[in-house]
């Protein structure tokens, strides 16, 4: 798709959501009714909460605690189905908070140990997403409680727990070499990155998202606890504010640079787009991972002090958007389609090296990924006293090559690079959702 054919001023003029014309030139799909969507994509993608109505939702079994004061029963219904065609936490609307952890399998652990752990994790994860405690002994005064307890009385907060497997898991340790998803290999070195091994990689990853940070943390903490002796935590990241919407029905949030950078994200409700860009399809020889996706994580440090000193005009040129409205520099409203051809005085209105120009599907042969990142902070730099933080980027795609292609462009040319640095990285195959009775152990090992 060339950039010229994508210029359709009408598409954005009426505030149409961020649906970039796809390479085949289909018009933007007609709005899908909520009920139809729920029926079509299956329970796995059905989401509770007011946004999608009550259909397909499960009621929380947890007692309404102090955090459940939201009117209209929204909090009470705040669960997302754990099972379905796809894992929850990808196409389901972004929650406000993240706890993300990666693990390595312990040196002495066997295939049987890992399979048993994944089975235990499935039961625990499913219980927690329903707002229940980790299954086990309750109330035996001589035994440590199986659930650590800090989520008791909190609503589930649309908790989703999404599992992924890193390239290292498919080496010769567990007999998984023949089941390696074909796109799963370590990311190549990319321009401009400065990766810290302490926040890079891992044999497994767990993404827990919820509207309550304590619920998300509780989920990872309890899975970690079940993993003692089998997996070792490698790194963990807390995200405190989502930076992308996975549906235009959610307002586009701002990143720590104060900009809306998720406006043109994929609308995860759009099955066509998801099928073409995000879900692993029939072309994948490893059947077990069809319907899954690949997760790429990047810990992106922002040089916030320097950024805050940059003049507004330059900040806007760096992104290619107005800081206040979020509109592209060629438009008036946030969802106006950027006009990458527009010039003023011989120069592009959206500069050559603007972030949105380099990242735009129109300029990358239609290439799209589903972003689902969060802002993070690590406190203060001990040496300089500067703030440590930025974007914990998470994206889902049907091949990690998509990210590599994009990042080769962005890492080399993006004006933003003056203010950011990629310091952590991860790539994981995310299996499809679980059917009734299935668990992650049997799904992985077959």
């Amino acid at each position, binding site marked *: 798709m060339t950039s010229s054919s994508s210029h359709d001023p009408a598409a954005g003029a009426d505030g149409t959501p961020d649906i970039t014309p796809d390479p085949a030139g289909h018009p933007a799909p007609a709005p899908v009714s909520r009920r139809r969507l729920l029926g079509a994509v299956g329970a796995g993608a059905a989401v509770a909460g007011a946004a999608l109505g009550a259909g397909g939702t499960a009621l929380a079994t947890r007692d309404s605690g102090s955090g459940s004061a939201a009117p209209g029963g929204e909090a009470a219904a705040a669960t997302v189905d754990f099972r379905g065609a796809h894992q929850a936490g990808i196409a389901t609307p972004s929650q406000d908070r993240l706890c993300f952890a990666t693990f390595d399998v*312990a040196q*002495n652990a066997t295939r049987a140990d890992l399979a048993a752990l994944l089975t235990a994790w499935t039961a625990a994860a499913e219980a927690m997403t329903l707002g229940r405690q980790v299954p086990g*002994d309750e*109330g*035996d*005064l*001589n*035994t*440590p409680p199986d659930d650590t307890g800090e989520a008791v009385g909190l609503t589930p907060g649309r908790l989703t727990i999404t599992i992924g497997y890193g390239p290292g898991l498919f080496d010769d340790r567990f007999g998984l070499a023949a089941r390696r998803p074909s796109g799963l290999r370590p990311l190549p070195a990319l321009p401009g990155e400065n990766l810290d091994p302490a926040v890079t990689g891992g044999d497994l990853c767990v993404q827990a998202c919820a509207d309550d940070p304590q619920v998300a943390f509780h989920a990872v903490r309890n899975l970690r*606890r079940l993993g*003692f*002796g089998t997996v*070792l935590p490698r790194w963990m990241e807390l995200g405190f504010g989502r930076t992308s919407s996975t549906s235009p029905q959610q307002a586009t949030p701002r990143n720590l640079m104060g900009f809306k950078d998720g406006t043109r994200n994929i609308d995860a409700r759009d099955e066509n787009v998801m099928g073409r860009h995000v879900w692993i399809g029939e072309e994948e020889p490893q059947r077990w991972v069809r319907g899954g996706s690949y997760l790429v994580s990047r810990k992106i440090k922002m040089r916030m002090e320097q950024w805050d000193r940059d003049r507004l005009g330059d900040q806007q040129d760096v992104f290619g958007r107005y800081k206040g409205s979020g509109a592209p520099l060629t438009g008036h409203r946030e969802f106006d389609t950027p006009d990458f051809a527009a010039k003023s005085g011989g120069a592009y209105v959206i500069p050559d090296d603007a972030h949105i120009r380099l990242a735009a599907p129109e300029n990358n042969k239609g290439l799209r990924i589903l972003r689902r990142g969060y802002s993070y902070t690590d406190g203060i730099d001990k040496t300089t006293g500067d703030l440590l933080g930025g974007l914990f980027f998470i994206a889902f795609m049907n091949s990690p090559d998509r990210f590599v292609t994009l990042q080769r462009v962005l890492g080399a040319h993006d004006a933003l690079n003056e203010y950011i640095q990629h310091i952590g990285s991860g790539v994981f195959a995310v299996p499809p959702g679980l059917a009734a009775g299935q668990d992650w152990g049997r799904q992985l090992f077959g």
Partner: protein
Amino acid sequence: MTPRATHRRALACAATVISAGLLLAACGGDKDDSKGSGSADGKNASAKSATVAIAISDKDCAPDPATVTAGTVKFDISNKGSAKVTEAELLDGGKILGEKENLTPGLSGDFTLNLDAGKYQIYCPGAKTEKTDFTVTGAAKKTWKDDPALVAATQQYATWVTGEVKELVTGTDAFTAAVKAGKTDEAKTLYGKARIHYERIEPTAEIWGDIDGRIDGRIDDAPTAADFTGFHRIEQALWEKNSTAGLGALADQLSADVHDLYTKVQTVEYQPAAIANGATDLVNEIQSSKITGEEERYSHIDLLDFDGNLAGANEAVTVLLPVLKAKDPTLAATVTQRYQATATALKAYAATPGYENSGYVDYRKVTDAQRRVLAQAVDAYAESVSKIAGKIA
């Protein structure tokens, strides 16, 4: 330094509250104040079951029958016509074991409990007679003392602790003699040899918080400088000042305290759950103060302390292992395997004669990455050990 005596007894007795399955072996002659269980799980094969009817009225809530034998007891509560009295509770002393509330006229409800022999009361607030006695008869409940294997385990552990403290006394006397004789280098090599025996039996020593504080307290435990005494106070002088000057009184006090400890440990009666929980404490201790290098911050012989804590935990687990194997073979195998993994990880740093004759390398030479490997083995072991008490009690 936390006094543990009360804590230990509470731990052992607490098990009786919960399930009939645990009742059999839980709590010796201790006077516990709870005899019922919150759920009838049917595990107690020898127990009988009984149903007790309670008709609540303005007058009272007398149980029928008023006496049953120990076992599963179902209480059927009904309110035929009292607007004033709408609930009934089963009390054990002041504690509510079971209740049914909001039984307005015409409603009924029930609850079921596992009850041991004892005197209870049925309580219905608002009635003319609010409390009526309810008696459960039967043989005194079985305790761990009825299990010869557990009795043998506690005796074996007691003998071992006493032997360790005896060696602690011998080692400490040699150490304090060297300190008083001004032999700094000799004192340094004797320091670890004495301490390892203490590190092995620390959960027992901690029963007496004052003695433990004087023997093993760290500078940050001491409210005032004068309260900082014992091994670590002498350690500080030996390694920081390379001197024994002014340590005479501290050496005498340390020697007297370990002698006192030897007398006291011979009076301790161990309970199986307390031994198991002590093992967890020891492994936790490795993680919280040895891996971090806090405990031996002047001498850096932390790996020797690690060895002591690990050996102490392993002894406690070993005496309980025959019972654990019978009750939960999977957990027994996991605990054994994780102990071996931890011991193997530690052994990588063994040296002869080692730093300060400790048998291990200087802990400062162990990198953060290496410490992390040790910590992960310890964490996994601790997690499995923490499950033992609930299985054997």
